[in-house]
Protein backbone atom coordinates (compact mmCIF):
# COMPACT_ATOMS: atom_id res chain seq x y z
CA UNK A 1 0.00 0.00 0.00
CA UNK A 2 2.79 2.36 1.03
CA UNK A 3 4.75 1.47 -2.11
CA UNK A 4 1.81 2.04 -4.45
CA UNK A 5 1.14 5.38 -2.73
CA UNK A 6 4.74 6.36 -3.25
CA UNK A 7 4.51 5.51 -6.95
CA UNK A 8 1.20 7.37 -7.29
CA UNK A 9 2.74 10.40 -5.59
CA UNK A 10 5.71 10.33 -7.97
CA UNK A 11 3.29 10.11 -10.91
CA UNK A 12 1.42 13.14 -9.54
CA UNK A 13 4.70 15.08 -9.35
CA UNK A 14 5.54 14.04 -12.90
CA UNK A 15 2.05 15.06 -14.05
CA UNK A 16 2.33 18.49 -12.43
CA UNK A 17 5.77 19.01 -13.96
CA UNK A 18 4.59 17.93 -17.43
CA UNK A 19 1.49 20.14 -17.28
CA UNK A 20 3.61 23.10 -16.24
CA UNK A 21 5.97 22.49 -19.17
CA UNK A 22 3.07 22.12 -21.62
CA UNK A 23 1.82 25.56 -20.60
CA UNK A 24 4.84 27.14 -22.25
CA UNK A 25 4.46 25.33 -25.56
CA UNK A 26 2.25 26.33 -28.54
CA UNK A 27 -0.38 23.94 -27.15
CA UNK A 28 -1.32 26.74 -24.74
CA UNK A 29 0.61 29.86 -25.77
CA UNK A 30 -0.50 30.56 -29.33
CA UNK A 31 1.44 33.68 -30.23
CA UNK A 32 -0.67 36.32 -32.01
CA UNK A 33 -3.43 33.76 -32.72
CA UNK A 34 -6.84 33.85 -31.03
CA UNK A 35 -8.35 30.61 -32.38
CA UNK A 36 -9.62 28.01 -31.99
CA UNK A 37 -12.23 29.65 -29.76
CA UNK A 38 -14.19 27.66 -27.17
CA UNK A 39 -17.45 29.08 -25.82
CA UNK A 40 -16.34 32.49 -27.05
CA UNK A 41 -13.04 32.26 -25.15
CA UNK A 42 -9.76 32.71 -27.04
CA UNK A 43 -7.46 29.68 -27.26
CA UNK A 44 -4.78 30.85 -24.80
CA UNK A 45 -7.38 31.59 -22.16
CA UNK A 46 -9.46 28.41 -22.32
CA UNK A 47 -6.44 26.14 -22.63
CA UNK A 48 -4.67 27.77 -19.68
CA UNK A 49 -7.89 27.56 -17.62
CA UNK A 50 -7.90 23.82 -18.35
CA UNK A 51 -4.26 23.59 -17.23
CA UNK A 52 -5.16 25.37 -13.97
CA UNK A 53 -8.08 23.01 -13.32
CA UNK A 54 -5.88 19.99 -14.06
CA UNK A 55 -3.23 21.27 -11.64
CA UNK A 56 -5.80 21.61 -8.86
CA UNK A 57 -7.09 18.11 -9.63
CA UNK A 58 -3.52 16.79 -9.41
CA UNK A 59 -3.04 18.64 -6.13
CA UNK A 60 -6.16 16.95 -4.77
CA UNK A 61 -5.02 13.50 -5.91
CA UNK A 62 -1.56 14.28 -4.53
CA UNK A 63 -3.03 14.92 -1.07
CA UNK A 64 -4.66 11.46 -1.17
CA UNK A 65 -1.49 9.59 -2.09
CA UNK A 66 1.16 11.75 -0.43
CA UNK A 67 3.55 9.43 1.48
CA UNK A 68 3.47 11.72 4.50
CA UNK A 69 -0.26 11.07 5.04
CA UNK A 70 0.40 7.71 6.72
CA UNK A 71 2.89 9.23 9.15
CA UNK A 72 0.27 11.89 9.79
CA UNK A 73 -2.18 9.27 11.06
CA UNK A 74 0.23 8.71 13.94
CA UNK A 75 0.67 12.41 14.62
CA UNK A 76 2.38 14.36 11.93
CA UNK A 77 4.82 13.92 9.11
Amino acid at each position, binding site marked *: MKRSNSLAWKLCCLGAFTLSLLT*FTPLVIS*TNTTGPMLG*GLPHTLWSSILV*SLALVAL*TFIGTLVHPGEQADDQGDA
Partner: protein
Amino acid sequence: MTTWLWILGALYLGGLVFATLGARSQSHSSDDFMMAGSDLGFIVGCLTVAATLFSTFTLLGMPDFFRTHGVGAWIFLAVSDTALAFVIIWFGAHLRRRAKEHDFQGIAGLMRSIYGSRWAGYVYLAGIFIFLVPYVAIQIRGIGIFMNATFPDFLPVWGWSILIVAVMLTYSELGGLKAIIYADAIQGVILMTVALVIAYGCISHFGSISAMFSEVRATNEALLSTPGPKGLLSTQFLLASFLVIILVPITQPQMTTRLVIMRDLKSMHRMAVMLGLFAIVLILAIVPIGMYGAAKYAELPTSEFLSRALIHDQAPIIAAAVAIGLIAAAISTADSLLFALGSELRSMLSGDEKTVMRYTKGAIVFFALLALVVAILSNDQLVLLARVSFAGTAILAPFILAALLSRRAPGPELIVATALGLALFLGSVTQAIPDTLNWVSMGLSLRLDLALLMGLSLFTLISLGVRSACAKQPSALSAGSN
Protein backbone atom coordinates in the same frame (compact mmCIF):
# COMPACT_ATOMS: atom_id res chain seq x y z
CA MET B 1 -22.10 55.67 -0.92
CA THR B 2 -20.60 57.62 1.98
CA THR B 3 -23.22 56.19 4.35
CA TRP B 4 -22.39 52.65 3.25
CA LEU B 5 -18.71 53.42 3.60
CA TRP B 6 -19.19 54.43 7.22
CA ILE B 7 -21.37 51.40 7.96
CA LEU B 8 -19.07 48.84 6.32
CA GLY B 9 -15.97 50.62 7.61
CA ALA B 10 -17.35 50.44 11.16
CA LEU B 11 -18.16 46.75 10.69
CA TYR B 12 -14.64 46.05 9.42
CA LEU B 13 -13.01 47.98 12.25
CA GLY B 14 -15.32 46.21 14.72
CA GLY B 15 -14.21 42.88 13.23
CA LEU B 16 -10.57 43.88 13.66
CA VAL B 17 -11.08 44.93 17.28
CA PHE B 18 -12.95 41.68 17.98
CA ALA B 19 -10.19 39.65 16.29
CA THR B 20 -7.47 41.49 18.20
CA LEU B 21 -9.17 41.06 21.58
CA GLY B 22 -9.90 37.39 20.86
CA ALA B 23 -6.32 36.75 19.79
CA ARG B 24 -4.96 38.64 22.79
CA SER B 25 -6.99 36.57 25.23
CA GLN B 26 -5.66 33.33 23.66
CA SER B 27 -2.05 34.49 23.63
CA HIS B 28 -0.25 33.26 26.76
CA SER B 29 3.37 33.12 25.61
CA SER B 30 5.73 34.63 23.06
CA ASP B 31 5.29 31.49 20.93
CA ASP B 32 1.50 32.01 20.95
CA PHE B 33 2.09 35.62 19.91
CA MET B 34 4.54 34.82 17.11
CA MET B 35 3.22 31.41 15.95
CA ALA B 36 -0.53 31.69 16.67
CA GLY B 37 -0.48 28.53 18.81
CA SER B 38 0.56 26.41 15.77
CA ASP B 39 -2.98 25.03 15.47
CA LEU B 40 -4.38 26.43 12.23
CA GLY B 41 -7.34 24.65 10.60
CA PHE B 42 -7.60 24.39 6.82
CA ILE B 43 -10.39 26.93 6.18
CA VAL B 44 -8.80 29.75 8.17
CA GLY B 45 -5.44 28.52 6.85
CA CYS B 46 -6.60 28.87 3.25
CA LEU B 47 -8.11 32.31 3.86
CA THR B 48 -4.98 33.64 5.55
CA VAL B 49 -2.65 32.23 2.86
CA ALA B 50 -4.97 33.56 0.12
CA ALA B 51 -5.18 36.98 1.77
CA THR B 52 -1.40 37.11 2.02
CA LEU B 53 -0.91 35.93 -1.55
CA PHE B 54 -3.72 37.88 -3.24
CA SER B 55 -2.79 41.36 -2.21
CA THR B 56 -4.12 44.69 -3.44
CA PHE B 57 -2.51 43.99 -6.76
CA THR B 58 -5.06 41.23 -7.39
CA LEU B 59 -7.94 43.70 -7.32
CA LEU B 60 -6.02 46.76 -8.52
CA GLY B 61 -3.07 45.47 -10.54
CA MET B 62 -4.58 42.40 -12.19
CA PRO B 63 -7.69 43.98 -13.79
CA ASP B 64 -5.37 46.59 -15.25
CA PHE B 65 -2.94 43.87 -16.32
CA PHE B 66 -5.72 42.05 -18.22
CA ARG B 67 -6.91 45.39 -19.67
CA THR B 68 -3.42 46.33 -20.89
CA HIS B 69 -1.79 42.99 -21.75
CA GLY B 70 -4.76 40.69 -22.43
CA VAL B 71 -5.62 37.09 -21.67
CA GLY B 72 -2.02 35.86 -21.28
CA ALA B 73 -2.27 37.38 -17.79
CA TRP B 74 -4.14 34.20 -16.81
CA ILE B 75 -0.89 32.24 -17.20
CA PHE B 76 1.02 34.96 -15.36
CA LEU B 77 -1.14 34.55 -12.26
CA ALA B 78 -3.64 31.67 -12.31
CA VAL B 79 -1.51 28.87 -13.77
CA SER B 80 1.32 29.95 -11.46
CA ASP B 81 -0.94 30.01 -8.39
CA THR B 82 -2.46 26.60 -9.03
CA ALA B 83 1.03 25.15 -9.53
CA LEU B 84 1.96 26.90 -6.28
CA ALA B 85 -0.77 24.86 -4.53
CA PHE B 86 0.97 21.68 -5.69
CA VAL B 87 4.33 23.02 -4.51
CA ILE B 88 2.78 23.54 -1.07
CA ILE B 89 1.97 19.84 -0.64
CA TRP B 90 5.40 18.80 -1.91
CA PHE B 91 7.50 21.35 -0.04
CA GLY B 92 5.28 21.69 3.05
CA ALA B 93 5.92 18.12 4.21
CA HIS B 94 9.71 18.57 4.00
CA LEU B 95 9.53 21.93 5.74
CA ARG B 96 7.36 20.65 8.58
CA ARG B 97 9.69 17.67 9.14
CA ARG B 98 12.78 19.90 9.36
CA ALA B 99 10.90 22.47 11.46
CA LYS B 100 10.19 19.76 14.05
CA GLU B 101 13.81 18.65 14.11
CA HIS B 102 15.20 22.17 14.61
CA ASP B 103 12.67 23.93 16.91
CA PHE B 104 11.46 26.25 14.13
CA GLN B 105 11.10 29.95 14.82
CA GLY B 106 11.80 31.19 11.32
CA ILE B 107 13.60 30.23 8.10
CA ALA B 108 16.60 32.42 8.99
CA GLY B 109 17.14 30.52 12.25
CA LEU B 110 16.54 27.22 10.46
CA MET B 111 19.17 28.05 7.82
CA ARG B 112 21.64 29.03 10.55
CA SER B 113 21.00 25.76 12.33
CA ILE B 114 21.24 23.50 9.24
CA TYR B 115 24.20 25.26 7.57
CA GLY B 116 25.89 25.64 10.96
CA SER B 117 26.71 29.28 10.18
CA ARG B 118 25.13 32.56 11.28
CA TRP B 119 25.89 33.89 7.80
CA ALA B 120 23.27 31.58 6.30
CA GLY B 121 20.66 33.31 8.47
CA TYR B 122 22.02 36.76 7.62
CA VAL B 123 21.91 36.10 3.86
CA TYR B 124 18.29 34.98 4.11
CA LEU B 125 17.40 37.99 6.27
CA ALA B 126 19.13 40.37 3.86
CA GLY B 127 17.33 38.83 0.86
CA ILE B 128 13.85 39.10 2.31
CA PHE B 129 14.50 42.53 3.79
CA ILE B 130 15.75 44.02 0.50
CA PHE B 131 12.94 42.61 -1.61
CA LEU B 132 9.95 42.42 0.70
CA VAL B 133 10.04 45.90 2.21
CA PRO B 134 9.43 47.42 -1.29
CA TYR B 135 6.62 44.90 -1.78
CA VAL B 136 4.96 46.09 1.44
CA ALA B 137 5.46 49.66 0.26
CA ILE B 138 3.70 48.82 -3.01
CA GLN B 139 0.65 47.59 -1.11
CA ILE B 140 0.47 50.73 0.98
CA ARG B 141 1.09 53.10 -1.92
CA GLY B 142 -1.30 51.29 -4.28
CA ILE B 143 -4.22 51.64 -1.95
CA GLY B 144 -3.23 55.22 -1.09
CA ILE B 145 -3.33 56.22 -4.76
CA PHE B 146 -6.62 54.46 -5.35
CA MET B 147 -8.34 55.95 -2.31
CA ASN B 148 -7.03 59.40 -3.17
CA ALA B 149 -8.34 59.10 -6.76
CA THR B 150 -11.71 57.94 -5.44
CA PHE B 151 -12.06 60.42 -2.57
CA PRO B 152 -9.86 63.35 -3.67
CA ASP B 153 -11.16 65.71 -0.97
CA PHE B 154 -10.68 63.39 2.00
CA LEU B 155 -6.96 62.62 2.41
CA PRO B 156 -3.79 62.88 0.26
CA VAL B 157 -1.92 59.68 -0.76
CA TRP B 158 0.51 59.97 2.14
CA GLY B 159 -2.40 60.51 4.56
CA TRP B 160 -4.06 57.23 3.48
CA SER B 161 -0.68 55.50 3.74
CA ILE B 162 -0.15 56.67 7.31
CA LEU B 163 -3.70 55.67 8.27
CA ILE B 164 -3.22 52.15 6.91
CA VAL B 165 0.13 51.66 8.64
CA ALA B 166 -1.30 52.94 11.94
CA VAL B 167 -4.27 50.51 11.87
CA MET B 168 -2.01 47.63 10.86
CA LEU B 169 0.57 48.24 13.57
CA THR B 170 -2.05 48.66 16.28
CA TYR B 171 -3.69 45.29 15.91
CA SER B 172 -0.60 43.27 14.97
CA GLU B 173 1.39 44.63 17.94
CA LEU B 174 -1.54 43.92 20.27
CA GLY B 175 -2.81 40.57 19.02
CA GLY B 176 0.20 39.00 17.29
CA LEU B 177 -0.01 36.50 14.43
CA LYS B 178 -3.43 35.18 15.46
CA ALA B 179 -4.97 38.67 15.13
CA ILE B 180 -3.35 38.97 11.70
CA ILE B 181 -4.73 35.58 10.66
CA TYR B 182 -8.26 36.47 11.78
CA ALA B 183 -8.01 39.79 9.92
CA ASP B 184 -6.76 37.88 6.86
CA ALA B 185 -9.79 35.60 7.01
CA ILE B 186 -12.13 38.63 7.05
CA GLN B 187 -10.22 40.12 4.12
CA GLY B 188 -10.27 36.87 2.13
CA VAL B 189 -14.06 36.69 2.35
CA ILE B 190 -14.48 40.39 1.42
CA LEU B 191 -12.06 40.11 -1.52
CA MET B 192 -13.78 37.08 -3.03
CA THR B 193 -17.31 38.45 -2.54
CA VAL B 194 -16.53 41.85 -4.00
CA ALA B 195 -14.65 40.40 -7.00
CA LEU B 196 -17.52 38.02 -7.83
CA VAL B 197 -20.19 40.74 -7.59
CA ILE B 198 -18.23 43.14 -9.80
CA ALA B 199 -17.44 40.39 -12.32
CA TYR B 200 -21.14 39.55 -12.57
CA GLY B 201 -21.89 43.22 -13.22
CA CYS B 202 -19.20 43.40 -15.92
CA ILE B 203 -20.49 40.32 -17.76
CA SER B 204 -24.06 41.64 -17.48
CA HIS B 205 -22.89 44.85 -19.14
CA PHE B 206 -21.93 42.87 -22.28
CA GLY B 207 -24.83 40.40 -22.09
CA SER B 208 -22.68 37.25 -22.29
CA ILE B 209 -19.08 36.06 -22.11
CA SER B 210 -18.92 35.60 -25.91
CA ALA B 211 -20.20 39.13 -26.45
CA MET B 212 -17.58 40.40 -24.03
CA PHE B 213 -14.69 38.87 -25.98
CA SER B 214 -16.25 39.93 -29.31
CA GLU B 215 -16.28 43.52 -28.12
CA VAL B 216 -12.70 43.27 -26.88
CA ARG B 217 -11.69 41.79 -30.26
CA ALA B 218 -13.26 44.79 -31.98
CA THR B 219 -11.36 47.17 -29.68
CA ASN B 220 -7.95 45.49 -29.79
CA GLU B 221 -7.57 41.92 -31.06
CA ALA B 222 -4.02 41.63 -29.70
CA LEU B 223 -5.53 41.42 -26.19
CA LEU B 224 -6.88 37.95 -26.99
CA SER B 225 -3.50 36.30 -27.49
CA THR B 226 0.06 36.44 -26.22
CA PRO B 227 2.30 38.41 -26.00
CA GLY B 228 -0.43 41.08 -25.84
CA PRO B 229 -0.53 44.54 -27.46
CA LYS B 230 2.68 45.74 -25.81
CA GLY B 231 4.57 42.48 -26.31
CA LEU B 232 5.20 42.04 -22.57
CA LEU B 233 3.80 38.52 -22.09
CA SER B 234 6.45 36.66 -24.06
CA THR B 235 7.02 32.98 -23.31
CA GLN B 236 10.26 33.81 -21.48
CA PHE B 237 8.56 36.47 -19.33
CA LEU B 238 5.72 34.09 -18.46
CA LEU B 239 8.13 31.26 -17.65
CA ALA B 240 10.29 33.47 -15.42
CA SER B 241 7.16 34.77 -13.65
CA PHE B 242 5.85 31.23 -13.24
CA LEU B 243 9.08 30.11 -11.58
CA VAL B 244 9.28 33.02 -9.17
CA ILE B 245 5.63 32.68 -8.15
CA ILE B 246 5.73 28.92 -7.50
CA LEU B 247 8.80 29.50 -5.33
CA VAL B 248 6.89 31.86 -3.02
CA PRO B 249 5.96 29.11 -0.48
CA ILE B 250 9.64 28.16 -0.30
CA THR B 251 11.24 31.55 -0.07
CA GLN B 252 8.83 33.98 1.56
CA PRO B 253 8.57 33.91 5.36
CA GLN B 254 4.88 34.81 5.63
CA MET B 255 4.12 31.63 3.66
CA THR B 256 6.61 29.30 5.34
CA THR B 257 5.37 30.34 8.78
CA ARG B 258 1.79 29.52 7.78
CA LEU B 259 2.78 26.11 6.46
CA VAL B 260 4.54 25.28 9.72
CA ILE B 261 1.69 26.44 11.98
CA MET B 262 -1.01 24.37 10.23
CA ARG B 263 -2.56 21.93 12.72
CA ASP B 264 -1.25 18.83 10.91
CA LEU B 265 -0.23 17.63 7.47
CA LYS B 266 -3.82 16.79 6.51
CA SER B 267 -4.96 20.35 7.28
CA MET B 268 -2.11 21.69 5.17
CA HIS B 269 -3.09 19.43 2.27
CA ARG B 270 -6.73 20.48 2.40
CA MET B 271 -5.65 24.10 2.61
CA ALA B 272 -3.55 23.68 -0.56
CA VAL B 273 -6.46 22.24 -2.57
CA MET B 274 -8.81 24.94 -1.32
CA LEU B 275 -6.22 27.58 -2.17
CA GLY B 276 -5.99 26.31 -5.76
CA LEU B 277 -9.77 26.51 -6.14
CA PHE B 278 -9.82 29.93 -4.48
CA ALA B 279 -7.22 31.16 -6.99
CA ILE B 280 -9.16 29.90 -10.00
CA VAL B 281 -12.50 31.39 -8.89
CA LEU B 282 -10.94 34.70 -7.89
CA ILE B 283 -8.96 35.15 -11.08
CA LEU B 284 -11.92 34.03 -13.19
CA ALA B 285 -13.71 36.97 -11.60
CA ILE B 286 -10.85 39.34 -12.41
CA VAL B 287 -10.87 38.51 -16.17
CA PRO B 288 -14.23 40.20 -16.93
CA ILE B 289 -13.23 43.29 -14.92
CA GLY B 290 -10.12 43.64 -17.09
CA MET B 291 -12.02 42.97 -20.32
CA TYR B 292 -14.66 45.50 -19.27
CA GLY B 293 -11.87 48.05 -18.90
CA ALA B 294 -10.35 47.06 -22.26
CA ALA B 295 -13.66 47.60 -24.05
CA LYS B 296 -14.92 50.63 -22.18
CA TYR B 297 -11.95 52.48 -20.71
CA ALA B 298 -9.05 51.50 -22.99
CA GLU B 299 -7.60 55.00 -23.15
CA LEU B 300 -7.86 55.98 -19.48
CA PRO B 301 -4.89 56.00 -17.10
CA THR B 302 -4.80 53.14 -14.56
CA SER B 303 -6.09 54.96 -11.49
CA GLU B 304 -9.01 56.50 -13.40
CA PHE B 305 -9.98 53.16 -14.97
CA LEU B 306 -9.95 51.45 -11.58
CA SER B 307 -11.81 54.25 -9.91
CA ARG B 308 -14.58 54.09 -12.54
CA ALA B 309 -14.80 50.30 -12.95
CA LEU B 310 -14.60 49.43 -9.26
CA ILE B 311 -16.32 52.40 -7.65
CA HIS B 312 -18.29 54.77 -9.90
CA ASP B 313 -19.93 52.08 -12.07
CA GLN B 314 -21.05 50.08 -9.04
CA ALA B 315 -24.05 50.30 -6.70
CA PRO B 316 -23.19 52.35 -3.58
CA ILE B 317 -23.00 49.33 -1.23
CA ILE B 318 -20.68 47.48 -3.64
CA ALA B 319 -18.50 50.54 -4.15
CA ALA B 320 -18.20 50.94 -0.38
CA ALA B 321 -17.39 47.20 -0.01
CA VAL B 322 -14.69 47.58 -2.70
CA ALA B 323 -13.09 50.48 -0.84
CA ILE B 324 -13.13 48.58 2.46
CA GLY B 325 -12.00 45.37 0.74
CA LEU B 326 -9.04 47.12 -0.83
CA ILE B 327 -7.96 48.67 2.45
CA ALA B 328 -8.33 45.25 4.08
CA ALA B 329 -6.28 43.61 1.29
CA ALA B 330 -3.46 46.13 1.61
CA ILE B 331 -3.43 45.79 5.37
CA SER B 332 -3.49 41.99 5.44
CA THR B 333 -0.66 41.50 2.97
CA ALA B 334 1.48 44.24 4.46
CA ASP B 335 1.03 43.20 8.08
CA SER B 336 1.72 39.54 7.30
CA LEU B 337 4.99 40.46 5.60
CA LEU B 338 6.09 42.89 8.30
CA PHE B 339 5.26 40.43 11.04
CA ALA B 340 7.13 37.70 9.16
CA LEU B 341 10.19 39.97 8.86
CA GLY B 342 10.05 40.52 12.63
CA SER B 343 9.60 36.80 13.19
CA GLU B 344 12.65 36.01 11.04
CA LEU B 345 14.74 38.51 12.98
CA ARG B 346 13.57 36.87 16.22
CA SER B 347 14.74 33.48 14.98
CA MET B 348 18.28 34.90 14.81
CA LEU B 349 18.23 36.45 18.26
CA SER B 350 19.12 34.74 21.48
CA GLY B 351 18.93 35.68 25.15
CA ASP B 352 16.22 36.62 27.59
CA GLU B 353 12.75 36.05 26.02
CA LYS B 354 11.36 39.42 27.13
CA THR B 355 14.28 41.28 25.61
CA VAL B 356 14.03 39.27 22.38
CA MET B 357 10.31 40.06 22.11
CA ARG B 358 10.99 43.74 22.79
CA TYR B 359 13.52 43.81 19.95
CA THR B 360 11.15 41.88 17.68
CA LYS B 361 8.21 44.23 18.27
CA GLY B 362 10.50 47.22 17.82
CA ALA B 363 11.79 45.76 14.55
CA ILE B 364 8.24 45.32 13.23
CA VAL B 365 7.54 49.02 13.91
CA PHE B 366 10.85 49.94 12.26
CA PHE B 367 10.08 47.84 9.14
CA ALA B 368 6.59 49.39 8.95
CA LEU B 369 7.94 52.93 9.12
CA LEU B 370 10.57 52.12 6.51
CA ALA B 371 7.90 50.69 4.20
CA LEU B 372 5.83 53.83 4.76
CA VAL B 373 8.72 56.05 3.67
CA VAL B 374 9.32 53.89 0.56
CA ALA B 375 5.56 53.95 -0.16
CA ILE B 376 5.47 57.72 -0.10
CA LEU B 377 8.56 58.00 -2.34
CA SER B 378 8.02 55.10 -4.81
CA ASN B 379 6.42 55.11 -8.31
CA ASP B 380 3.17 53.58 -9.57
CA GLN B 381 4.32 50.40 -11.40
CA LEU B 382 2.39 48.07 -9.10
CA VAL B 383 2.49 44.74 -10.88
CA LEU B 384 6.02 44.91 -12.23
CA LEU B 385 7.50 46.09 -8.94
CA ALA B 386 5.70 43.27 -7.18
CA ARG B 387 7.17 40.83 -9.66
CA VAL B 388 10.69 42.16 -9.06
CA SER B 389 10.21 41.56 -5.34
CA PHE B 390 9.14 37.97 -5.98
CA ALA B 391 12.05 37.41 -8.39
CA GLY B 392 14.49 38.69 -5.77
CA THR B 393 13.27 36.30 -3.10
CA ALA B 394 13.13 33.42 -5.63
CA ILE B 395 16.92 33.60 -5.87
CA LEU B 396 16.99 32.21 -2.31
CA ALA B 397 15.18 29.01 -3.35
CA PRO B 398 18.15 26.72 -4.22
CA PHE B 399 19.89 27.74 -0.97
CA ILE B 400 16.77 26.89 1.10
CA LEU B 401 15.93 23.69 -0.78
CA ALA B 402 19.49 22.43 -0.40
CA ALA B 403 19.20 22.85 3.37
CA LEU B 404 15.80 21.20 3.67
CA LEU B 405 16.16 18.34 1.21
CA SER B 406 19.78 17.33 1.67
CA ARG B 407 20.66 14.77 4.36
CA ARG B 408 24.05 16.40 4.94
CA ALA B 409 24.66 20.03 5.87
CA PRO B 410 25.31 22.00 2.64
CA GLY B 411 28.61 23.82 2.36
CA PRO B 412 29.36 27.52 2.90
CA GLU B 413 29.94 27.95 -0.85
CA LEU B 414 26.14 28.00 -1.25
CA ILE B 415 25.87 30.91 1.19
CA VAL B 416 28.48 32.86 -0.79
CA ALA B 417 26.90 32.01 -4.17
CA THR B 418 23.44 33.05 -2.95
CA ALA B 419 24.77 36.35 -1.57
CA LEU B 420 26.46 36.97 -4.91
CA GLY B 421 23.25 36.12 -6.79
CA LEU B 422 21.26 38.56 -4.67
CA ALA B 423 23.84 41.27 -5.26
CA LEU B 424 23.80 40.71 -9.04
CA PHE B 425 20.01 40.79 -9.18
CA LEU B 426 19.94 43.95 -7.09
CA GLY B 427 22.48 45.40 -9.51
CA SER B 428 20.15 44.67 -12.42
CA VAL B 429 17.14 46.18 -10.63
CA THR B 430 19.09 49.37 -9.98
CA GLN B 431 20.33 49.24 -13.61
CA ALA B 432 23.97 49.07 -12.54
CA ILE B 433 24.25 45.95 -14.73
CA PRO B 434 22.07 44.77 -17.65
CA ASP B 435 18.92 42.78 -16.79
CA THR B 436 19.29 40.56 -19.87
CA LEU B 437 22.16 38.41 -21.10
CA ASN B 438 22.55 38.74 -24.87
CA TRP B 439 24.45 36.49 -27.24
CA VAL B 440 24.09 38.72 -30.29
CA SER B 441 26.05 36.45 -32.63
CA MET B 442 23.67 33.55 -31.85
CA GLY B 443 20.58 35.77 -31.70
CA LEU B 444 19.84 34.60 -28.13
CA SER B 445 18.91 36.51 -25.01
CA LEU B 446 18.14 35.36 -21.47
CA ARG B 447 16.61 37.32 -18.58
CA LEU B 448 19.10 37.74 -15.73
CA ASP B 449 16.62 36.56 -13.06
CA LEU B 450 16.05 33.34 -15.00
CA ALA B 451 19.80 32.93 -15.62
CA LEU B 452 20.58 33.45 -11.91
CA LEU B 453 17.95 30.97 -10.82
CA MET B 454 19.19 28.36 -13.28
CA GLY B 455 22.85 29.05 -12.47
CA LEU B 456 22.34 28.84 -8.71
CA SER B 457 20.27 25.65 -9.06
CA LEU B 458 23.03 24.03 -11.10
CA PHE B 459 25.74 25.21 -8.73
CA THR B 460 23.75 23.85 -5.76
CA LEU B 461 23.36 20.45 -7.41
CA ILE B 462 27.08 20.29 -8.19
CA SER B 463 28.03 21.36 -4.66
CA LEU B 464 25.74 18.77 -3.04
CA GLY B 465 26.93 16.09 -5.47
CA VAL B 466 30.61 16.75 -4.85
CA ARG B 467 30.14 16.88 -1.06
CA SER B 468 28.13 13.66 -1.14
CA ALA B 469 30.85 11.92 -3.21
CA CYS B 470 33.60 13.19 -0.88
CA ALA B 471 31.66 11.98 2.16
CA LYS B 472 31.28 8.49 0.66
CA GLN B 473 34.91 8.20 -0.43
CA PRO B 474 36.53 7.69 3.02
CA SER B 475 34.02 4.96 3.92
CA ALA B 476 34.60 3.25 0.56
CA LEU B 477 38.34 3.43 1.15
CA SER B 478 38.04 1.97 4.63
CA ALA B 479 35.74 -0.80 3.32
CA GLY B 480 38.37 -1.60 0.65
CA SER B 481 41.22 -1.78 3.18
CA ASN B 482 39.21 -4.18 5.35
